[in-house]
């Protein structure tokens, strides 16, 4: 009976409110984890995902651009250009650079590309325009927000001072952000004019990129060639292997805390209502009725907690993004559905212990 379950919960107002807020905090934690994961996964691989390249050429043994070193030379580029079926070859140079900001040093993932082709540049511009000169830079939107940088500002990069002309999105990797400069400026900064990190290759229409990949590999032995799909998969795998274990641990802690809160409160309610349950047993309640009231209580608490969490989550997200712009939070309906399903499952699991306690309540107790 829903009324019995509801009244049992509401009988202790303060306990009910505290429990709902405890559950809501756990749910918010889970939603944040999923949203941060989504934000990091977009920010980490959007650059690769949005690339127009058919093939990615890296140094042999390098598999991704997130956590592997790849150094190629202009010689490699010249050889690739001559391979049959290759339409264009875009060199990109990645440099980890430290900026001297007023707040202290800040590290960015400088990406040198050829603005003429646009290949290798930012996946999307939030504000401003693309590079037209060597002394210009496009910053990640969250990086700019964190250091209160806007279009037209000048920032020191190594020994150079560059003017910000654009702010990009999909370029926030959480621990570090992309920034885009011309390849020429990148060579100038790194001090070696003939090196690149990778080449992004476009195939002629009607040609098979895998045929071109085979031809390139037959010409160059010290490279690794990936089609767009497998290279994206490599980068996603690299990102997940670094991030997911941490998220799993925190999510598990959240789930355990949630289970403990629910289980404890339901057990207390069962013990406090011991006499009521004994009366119901004596009066002939069906076997599923009393456990059903416990499950109803669990679902009501979980439902209330989820509702409060959803009300608080979006305003809290905005606050977090204002306080820490580098924390990229992207939420979606599917995440919310996953969390609601997870909390529902946890509420059923947490009913197990209190339901077991019910078996120790005997109808004879009401005759004592």
């Amino acid at each position, binding site marked *: 009976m829903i009324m*019995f379950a509801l009244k049992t919960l509401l009988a202790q107002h303060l306990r009910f409110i505290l429990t709902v807020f405890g559950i809501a905090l756990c749910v918010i934690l889970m939603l944040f984890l999923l949203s941060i994961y989504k934000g990091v996964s977009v920010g980490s691989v959007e650059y690769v995902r949005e690339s127009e390249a058919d093939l990615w050429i890296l140094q042999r043994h390098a598999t991704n651009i997130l956590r592997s070193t790849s150094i190629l030379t202009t010689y490699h580029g010249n050889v690739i250009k001559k391979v049959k079926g290759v339409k264009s070859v875009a060199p990109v140079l990645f440099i980890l650079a430290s900026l001297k900001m007023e707040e202290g040093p800040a590290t960015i993932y400088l990406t040198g590309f050829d603005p003429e082709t646009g290949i290798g540049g930012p996946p999307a511009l939030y504000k401003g325009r693309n590079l037209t000169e060597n002394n210009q830079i496009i910053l990640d939107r969250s990086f700019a927000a964190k250091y209160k940088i806007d279009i037209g500002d000048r920032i020191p990069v190594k020994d150079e001072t560059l003017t910000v002309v654009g702010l990009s999105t999909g370029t926030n990797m959480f621990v570090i952000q992309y920034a885009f400069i011309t390849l020429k400026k990148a060579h100038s900064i790194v001090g070696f004019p003939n090196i690149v990190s990778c080449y992004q290759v476009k195939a002629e229409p009607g040609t098979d990129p895998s045929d071109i990949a085979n031809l390139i590999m037959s010409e160059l032995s010290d490279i690794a060639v990936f089609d767009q799909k497998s290279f994206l998969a490599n980068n996603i795998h690299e990102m997940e292997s670094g991030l997911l274990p941490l998220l799993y641990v925190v999510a598990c802690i959240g789930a355990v805390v949630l289970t403990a809160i629910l289980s404890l409160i339901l057990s207390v309610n069962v013990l406090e209502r011991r006499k009521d349950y004994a009366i119901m047993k*004596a*009066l*002939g309640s069906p076997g599923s009725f009393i456990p059903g009231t416990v499950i109803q209580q669990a679902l009501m608490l979980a439902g209330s907690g989820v509702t409060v969490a959803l009300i608080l989550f979006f305003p809290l997200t905005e606050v977090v993004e204002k306080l820490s712009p580098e924390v990229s939070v992207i939420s979606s309906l599917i995440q919310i559905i996953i969390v609601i399903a997870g909390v529902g499952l946890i509420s059923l699991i947490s009913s197990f212990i209190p339901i077991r306690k019910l078996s120790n309540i005997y109808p004879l107790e009401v*005759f004592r």
Partner: protein
Amino acid sequence: MKIKKENNCVARLVNVTKVYNGAGTETAALKDVSFQACAGEMVLLLGPSGSGKTTLLTLLAGLQQPSAGEVYIYGQKVNEYSSKELQKLRAGRIGFIFQTFYLLDSLTVLDNVLLVMKFAGVGRTEAQSRAFHFLDKFGVKHLIHTYPKALSQGEKQRVAVARALANGAEFIIADEPTGSLATNQGMTIVRFLQDSVKTEKRCVVIASHDERIAGYADRVLYLHDGMLGEHRRGQRPEI
């Protein structure tokens, strides 16, 4: 559920002994007790505290098994009922009135009465109709949305009787029903039960140490140290 009925006897105990095992000790609550309660009669079990009255009631309700002897409820041995059948029996064919009435505090008066009928599988419309009928009969219909904490002892008593009778039980078990009431209120509940015996041919078994109830009972039995004897008014019982 198949219910057999021998004559009009609702419950029967045959040479029943009930022993409770404690920490290294055994206590016989009932000793070789034979007893039956039939439709259309009110039976009063008198006896002091610890005499075995409550044990006898719980055996009649199928809430526990005897250590020796046989208990029949509606003509069938209690140990031949499955636990589900016993649950259905208590929900639909046995009404309970407890010493302190034990209404569920978290439910309104109406929901307290409806709950038992829900256990018995009575449809909501029919259950509401019955609930209103009995609450009206016992003068507490105006309290249907009130919670037990706001009721007087007398009002709780009437709701408890309505709850016991509303599911249509032919067998009412009452444990010290007057124990927590003032004299006039206590006798009111007994009169309600007596009326249900006469008009609806129910069987009522009351366990009490209140000898004033004897005047309303068709039979009075006396329990002392787990043994049962006939009680003659004005005399000490012979065991």
